[in-house]
């Protein structure tokens, strides 16, 4: 990201409000989104595209669930854990959700400290976010293992419609992949922050471009998106 988000362009900052402001931006010179860097614009557009992927997955799941003629397994029984002699419905998933949402909090703090140029705190918070994300994936692996030992397979399960297992493994797996990729990139960016790459303008290994602290925020956009998607998966899968 060579270019900087110039906030002092010499232009008057006052723009018409509402739709007129949008029209003014779009019909203006050079950039449609003023003061939005290339990297951030690209991440937003990617997330829009990714939204369509998750949207298609969830719609397909809903189609399968709504049109099956076989009973759908009851989520509060399937996703219950036996703790201390009693079945607690959705307990694991509640913890997982809590962990993931918390990681959004640590991520937001990391972004804040990034803009304050506090290398240490930024890196630590990013690593904490990564750790929470890894915990989430770990618990997901536990949940998968539990379901598999109970006989749930992509092609069938003991309780009802075969599509239960197929959609469950597919969608949570696809989301888990997103989280895993996020964890990897969090670690990479945290390392760059820690090493001070963004302070000294060290060129990237692959891209040979100098990064900036804004990368932390762009990373955060992705991370919050993955969290948001989880909320929908949670609602449609576990609460329906």
């Amino acid at each position: 990201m060579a270019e900087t988000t110039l906030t002092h362009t010499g232009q008057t900052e006052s723009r018409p409000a509402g739709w007129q402001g949008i029209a003014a931006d779009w019909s203006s010179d050079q950039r449609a989104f003023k003061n939005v860097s290339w990297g951030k614009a690209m991440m937003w557009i990617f997330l829009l595209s990714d939204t369509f992927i998750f949207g298609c997955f969830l719609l397909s799941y809903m189609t399968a669930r709504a049109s099956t003629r076989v009973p759908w397994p009851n989520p509060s029984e399937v996703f219950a854990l036996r703790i201390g002699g009693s079945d607690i419905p959705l307990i694991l998933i509640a913890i997982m959700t809590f962990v993931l949402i918390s990681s959004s909090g640590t991520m937001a703090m990391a972004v804040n400290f990034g803009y304050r140029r506090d290398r240490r705190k930024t890196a630590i918070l990013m690593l904490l976010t990564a750790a929470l994300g890894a915990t989430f994936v770990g618990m997901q692996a536990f949940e998968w293992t539990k379901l598999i030992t109970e006989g749930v397979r992509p092609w069938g399960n003991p309780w009802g419609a075969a599509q239960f297992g197929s959609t469950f493994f597919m969608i949570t797996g696809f989301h888990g992949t997103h989280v895993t990729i996020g964890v990897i990139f969090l670690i990479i960016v945290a390392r760059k922050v820690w090493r001070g790459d963004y302070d000294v303008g060290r060129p990237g290994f692959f891209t040979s471009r100098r990064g900036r602290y804004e990368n932390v925020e762009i990373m955060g956009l992705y991370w919050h998106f993955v969290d948001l998607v989880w909320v929908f998966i949670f609602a449609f899968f576990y609460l329906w």
Partner: protein
Amino acid sequence: MVDVTPADAVPPAEVAEMELYHPHSWWTKYVFSQDAKVIAIQYSGTATAIGLVALVLSWLMRLQLGFPGTFDFITPEAYYQFITMHGMIMVIYLLTALFLGGFGNYLIPLMVGARDMVFPYVNMLSYWIYLLAVLVLVSSFFAPGGPTGAGWTLYPPQAIMTGTPGGQEWGIILMLVSLILFIIGFTMGGLNYVVTVLQARTRGMTMMRLPLTVWGIFTATVMALLAFPALFVACVMMLLDRALGTSFFMPAVVEMGEQLQHNGGSPILFQHLFWFFGHPEVYIVALPAFGIVSDLISTHARKNIFGYRMMVWAIVGIGALSFVVWAHHMYVSGMHPYFGFFFATTTLIIAIPTAIKVYNWVLTLWRGDIHLTIPMLFAMAFIVTFVNGGLTGLFLGNVVVDVPLSDTMFVVAHFHMVMGVAPILVIFGAIYHWYPKVTGRMLNETLGRFHFWVTFLGAYLIFFPMHYIGLMGVPRRYAEMTDVTVMTESAHHLNSFISIMAFIVGFAQIVFLFNLIWSIRHGREAGGNPWRATTLEWQTPQTPPAHGNFGKELPIVYRWAYDYSVPGAKEDFIPQNMPGTFGPSREPA
């Protein structure tokens, strides 16, 4: 938009100069290049190469249809494989890749006045993943069982069953993996194109001053980023159905007297996902063609494009509407009649912005100083062909007319006219137009005219009779129809005639390829701006443009892209980066 005269009225640069990667070796300069122009040529070369495979496949199909029973090696299974691979390659790996990866990469940075795409490294990855997708696709020809023969729409359940070639072998798996790779690769490039257009324009280049080529490619890319996800999801789910035995798309099926383990899936769900991608895909291919042809017509008729704003809004409108028409591909899937009514209505509404565009092209030509150059010939051929193909689209968009015509050769003729021949004509025109910029030399004129006339007339001789045999009721996707009542003697003769024409037109493409290679060394020197065009790519200091496109200083844009034949100006064109006021410009205020 009052900054026409003084240079100091141009706002200061909002973005610092782009940091470019400067290659150190032959490998990073020509192979693993981060320069959008090199990537464009890589994309185009790969797309053309795989397109040639699809061309040969169409010949093989025509051999079988025109002279059934003559060629023993074309079994019915092989015929299905040819159909499938021909369709998929042409639509995805040739047209989409060539328009967006090829023309998009070359023209967007040059036309908007940028040094490169915003993220050249990601752009480079995009090409290499595309190449990988192509290689996986090609590998299916050599896999056990051969490539898939499911038809290019890959409809389940038959796509993954034993009777279909490649259904229970490697074919379908390689096809799905290849598509998934293609989508990943395309997304990397597509994000680059969109952000470059939105955020990396040069000073003075407002969105409403962009050449229509950029508008077309830009809108198509946005559409692709929203439509390909549906195909991605469909591919993942079918891959799981095939590899893991899930039942997303597979209902309970009895095959060879044996109940398959699949149960309770919905084949219609696949159709919805596929066509939610598939219909926008038609316009992903068509919109860049619309944009490019607008610029070709304006430049070679020495006249500003008629109704620039309407052209832009028509492009955007078509793009938006194309997301709500997908089920017109599914009228015979047993859908509710009201559903069909809705989709027929939206389908016919698309005819309005499309017609606006056609009228505007014609009105641009009207009283223009028309130069019958090869790009112009192709552009005019496009208008005619597109109108022809579009009109049969009105037939097929209506449910009651579609039902009897569905799955006949009429449909084949329709979509080949509208999304095969028409965009390809634009591609040819565009190559003749921009080849001088890419290589510094003109393509050979004589060979070019030969190529044009054979291709244009030949395409009509192929596809007009095909409409006719379709109306007679000849179905598509049948390898052999010797003893069927609809296959009358005359239909047989027409089929043989079409096949011979297909060979002639195919031969003309070989001549074209020869011209492409021959002219690199032996073509006439073109100079920097042989067509006397206004857009920025013709104003570069070097031809072909060097790394970074524009020398030391980025150009500053003072006007729209269509100041041709402005009264009072010395020349009949005013480049976009030329300051000053000349006569009454028709640039919309």
